[in-house]
């Protein structure tokens, strides 16, 4: 329990801070001319600004498809412009939302609107104290997991938008009832992005939905600058320690492919990653035997999931003792900030703060290249 006691004020800081600032820019934004947002990294959505409305397209780029999901972001009370019969309408600024994923909570927190979250999929994974408090008092409801949502509850809550984690490709199979009931369903698929900044840039969607572009753009710019500065340090490092990622399960070892978010992060952190030249943006399913020659010699072992001690690693499989990183103690995972159900903040605030994740990795990979400080998301597994 002591772990969480230390963690708690830290979290309050991150969640509370963003929540106090905003009101003033938001107030001016709701007037006629909305602040514009330009996207530099995210590939999964676009925002276009028109006189009286904004148009959001969620792109469907898997499987070479060019379909998009269209959304009209209209000020409350405004009439729907012509030629947009197929688009879902979201009334802005969104005053209440139900979010299914941890990154969505972090995005709302980033934009200073975590207090507008009225529903979440499963409360036990939430870190943000504001939302947890809401769950305790009943202001925030649990609406069930994706695929088995409590439709009646969602409809009765009348959220301004329901954000799902679904792949836009398979978007609306299970949501037709809700869309028919007039609830806009928006797949917030930040997890499909292949760069850390691209993933974080989905905060701009939250900014557009809540008319907080100014604040969000400003905060994102500082995230971007911090990330780029750190990446320059990481990439310039002379020594590139070799890394392996994850734990195999039943003989299959899932390694991030060369075009994935994780591979990009490792490159920016100045790591040498054996599979960096492989194609694909997802994971490679490799046999233990394929990974073994690399794993035996790798300097650092990262992201072993919720396994929390070296003893627990050996309990999975005693053969891991032969790995160099295991013997030297260079095993790190993103379990420093976890809640009482074991959910890690890496998946929540880490999604919109890639600069902190990168700083952690650089401190792990190149111990003397940054001023000494404690890690934020990562911890050494002992």
């Amino acid at each position: 329990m002591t772990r969480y006691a230390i963690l708690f004020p830290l979290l309050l800081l991150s969640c509370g801070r963003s929540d106090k600032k905003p009101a003033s820019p938001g107030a001016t934004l709701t007037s006629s001319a909305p602040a514009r947002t330009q996207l530099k990294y995210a590939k999964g959505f676009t925002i276009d600004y028109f006189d009286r409305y904004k148009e959001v397209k969620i792109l469907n780029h898997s499987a070479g498809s060019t379909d998009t999901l269209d959304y009209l972001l209209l000020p409350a009370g405004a009439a729907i412009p012509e030629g947009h019969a197929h688009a879902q309408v979201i009334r802005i600024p969104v005053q209440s939302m139900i979010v299914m994923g941890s990154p969505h909570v972090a995005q709302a927190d980033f934009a200073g609107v975590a207090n507008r979250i009225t529903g979440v999929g499963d409360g036990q994974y939430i870190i943000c104290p504001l939302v947890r408090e809401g769950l305790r008092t009943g202001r925030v409801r649990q609406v069930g997991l994706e695929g088995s949502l409590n439709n009646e509850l969602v409809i009765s809550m009348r959220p301004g938008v329901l954000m799902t984690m679904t792949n836009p490709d398979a978007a609306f199979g299970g949501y037709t009832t809700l869309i028919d009931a007039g609830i806009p369903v928006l797949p917030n698929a930040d997890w499909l992005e292949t760069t850390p900044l691209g993933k974080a840039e989905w905060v701009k969607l939250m900014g557009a939905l809540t008319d907080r572009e100014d604040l969000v753009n400003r905060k994102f710019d500082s995230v971007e600058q911090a990330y780029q500065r750190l990446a320059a340090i990481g990439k310039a490092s002379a020594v590139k320690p070799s890394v392996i990622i994850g734990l195999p399960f039943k003989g299959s070892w899932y390694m991030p492919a060369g075009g994935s978010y994780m591979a990009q992060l490792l490159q920016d952190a100045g790591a040498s990653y054996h599979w960096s030249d492989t194609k694909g943006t997802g994971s490679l399913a490799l046999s233990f035997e394929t990974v073994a020659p690399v794993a035996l010699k790798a300097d650092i072992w990262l992201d072993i999931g919720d396994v929390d001690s070296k003893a627990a690693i050996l309990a999975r499989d005693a053969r891991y003792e032969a790995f160099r990183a295991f013997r030297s103690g260079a095993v790190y995972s993103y379990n420093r900030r976890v809640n009482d159900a074991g959910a890690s903040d890496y998946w929540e605030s880490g999604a919109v703060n890639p600069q902190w994740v990168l700083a952690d990795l650089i401190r792990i990979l190149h111990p003397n290249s940054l001023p000494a400080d404690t890690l934020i998301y990562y911890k050494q597994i002992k």
Partner: protein
Amino acid sequence: MTESPFKKIRLTGLLLLLLLAFLLDLSTGTVNISLKEILRVFLSPTAADPTWQFIVKSIRLPKACTAVLAGCGLSVGGLQMQTLFRNPLADPSILGVTAGASLGVAAVMLAGGSMASLYAIKDLGLSGSWLIIGAACLGAGGIMLLVLIVARRLRDNVMMLIVGIMIGSMTLALISIWQYFSNPEEVKDYLLWTFGSLGGVTGGQLSILAIVVGIGLVVALFSTKMLDALLLGENYAQSMGLSARKARTVIICSTSLLAGSITAFCGPIGFIGIAVPHIARFLFNTASHRILIPACCLIGTILLLLCDTFAQLPGSQTVLPINIITSIVGSPLVIVLLLRQTTAHPW
């Protein structure tokens, strides 16, 4: 009845084939290691490359040993069930023991709604693979007890078969409820487990699996007379002074030990249990279990070793789950054998 030398020759031939299959399995994998290197790993360990040594000794050898144990256990379990129920479609999972093991694993892996309880179990010091194995053993043991209690009350083996299937489907329904309320990641973990794997059993686990499978096989060998008598019908068996209930209890115990332990360690591996007894009967053209049990051990082992070899063809970096391969490789084999069969089956 003395066994003809012809059968001994066939058994010896199978034994040689088994050795070859074992070597083949050791020498194939996603990483290319020459036979010379593999021999050096075993003969002069100090001279061998430590990486090759790790791959051969810590990855391939335990996997091949697991294949031997699972191949023996599942085929003999299948043979026992086919004889007990006089049904060519019976396999070791027919009593619901495999489903019981799955239920135990599902309880651990899909504990999403009650993460706290999972943490409580972890505090007991049971974690990782042992946790899954322990849960599977509890599940399989629970169902086995249930089946044995029912078996004492029922006279008829056909009824026993139906009860076994009912218990199995009831158990699977419980798992489905659990899956329905679980997170996609947890369901995926569970799904991967149901694909079966020979690769996760090492060290102490391998020894325990070997002991349990060994006990199951010894019980099976001692029950050959009962099995032979059962083939002639329960009435005939009783006229020979054999208590049908006692025979049933012994056979159910043996099969449950075999199927339960193998499922606990490797996940449910299908097909071997149903197909190998047919292949054995075809090759040896006999109904005598004194021949069929060793034959099933040999054939089951060879088949599973070959399947494991196919699952990891060189040139690809991925291994296919063993369950897929056993069916794809095995089914055509059985169909061909049955088509060529001229004599009638003994049931």
